[in-house]
């Protein structure tokens, strides 16, 4: 199978370029397996991965034009030649590895933890099964960044727009019955950029390898703002 992979070493290269590789494919192989085979031919290729089964979210990349995780992308589903770029819009550290700093900055900015003002109970903070169900489809995010780096609004304003992944997490805590910082969280998202740069383009939900839906979460946040404003 033929692969075209974007290479870039900021120390020696002026511009990124595509390099061609040929890999012998066996049934059931994932794209990450192909990278491992390529690294045996050319160990200078830089790819980031860890768990290899779609849990850690380290190997987000742009595969044939769509963001995804290489470890859970079967080669059988891919058209030849398989063209792989780093996720778009982020500074390249080397080859397929990008600097995710702005992404993490936006994630930190939504305060992704429970804020509870009342004195803590002696035992656990309880939650009804129904309230717990509200967190399904939100807590599963692995922060791979496929969604935010597929979002044009995040490309244009990565320093000011929170991006789909961070906004999904903002809603994850707004939706949590144990969280007591609703007003603070909503206030923090006001302004023309942080939340409202979202134009419902929906690339985020198309690419999410966990089938989560940040667009829907953003809609919920806007509805909650409406409820709190009138």
């Amino acid at each position, binding site marked *: 199978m033929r692969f075209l992979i974007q290479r870039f070493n900021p120390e020696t290269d002026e511009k990124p370029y595509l390099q061609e590789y040929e890999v012998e494919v066996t049934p059931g192989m994932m794209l990450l397996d192909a990278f491992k085979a390529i690294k045996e031919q050319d160990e200078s290729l830089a790819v980031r991965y860890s768990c290899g089964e779609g849990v850690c979210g380290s190997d987000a990349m742009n595969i044939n034009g769509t963001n995804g995780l290489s470890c859970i992308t079967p080669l059988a589903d891919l058209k030849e030649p398989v063209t792989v770029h780093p996720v778009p819009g982020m500074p390249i550290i080397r080859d397929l590895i990008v600097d995710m700093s702005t992404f993490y900055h936006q994630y930190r900015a939504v305060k992704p933890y429970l804020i509870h003002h009342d004195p803590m109970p002696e035992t656990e903070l309880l939650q009804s099964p129904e309230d717990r169900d509200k967190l399904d489809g939100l807590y599963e995010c692995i922060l791979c960044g496929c969604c935010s780096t597929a979002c*044009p609004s995040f490309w244009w*304003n990565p320093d000011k727009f929170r991006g789909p992944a961070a906004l999904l997490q903002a809603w994850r805590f707004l939706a949590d019955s144990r969280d007591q910082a609703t007003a603070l969280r909503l206030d923090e998202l*006001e*302004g023309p*950029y942080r939340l409202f*740069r979202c134009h419902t383009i929906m690339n985020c939900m198309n690419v999410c390898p966990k089938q989560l839906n940040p667009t829907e979460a953003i809609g919920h946040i*806007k509805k909650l703002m409406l409820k709190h404003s009138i």
Partner: protein
Amino acid sequence: MRWSLGGFRPWLFQRISAVYMLGFLLFFMLAIYSCPPTDYQAWREWFAHPVMWMATAIFFVSLFLHVWVGLRDVILDYLHNVPIRLVVLISLGISLISLTLWVFRALFTVAYL
């Protein structure tokens, strides 16, 4: 402190104005279709009626505010040079305010002259 352009209000206004404009345009087309004003005098009288006058005024204000929110979004997305962005935003604001004044002049002429 709220010193920046808004987020929630413009967004909400964009939705409300869209619904209003759709309703007004449907009504307007229906009215034209079912009983078209026969001459200039009939047109004037139609627009001079207080309800129609008010509805038209609200329509144009909605339209210009809708345009403001929409173009403002495009500018915030694509114009990253702050001085240029400021100039473009201010020119847009001035143009829309002038257009509003012009529409009101026309509406007052219809009602009072």
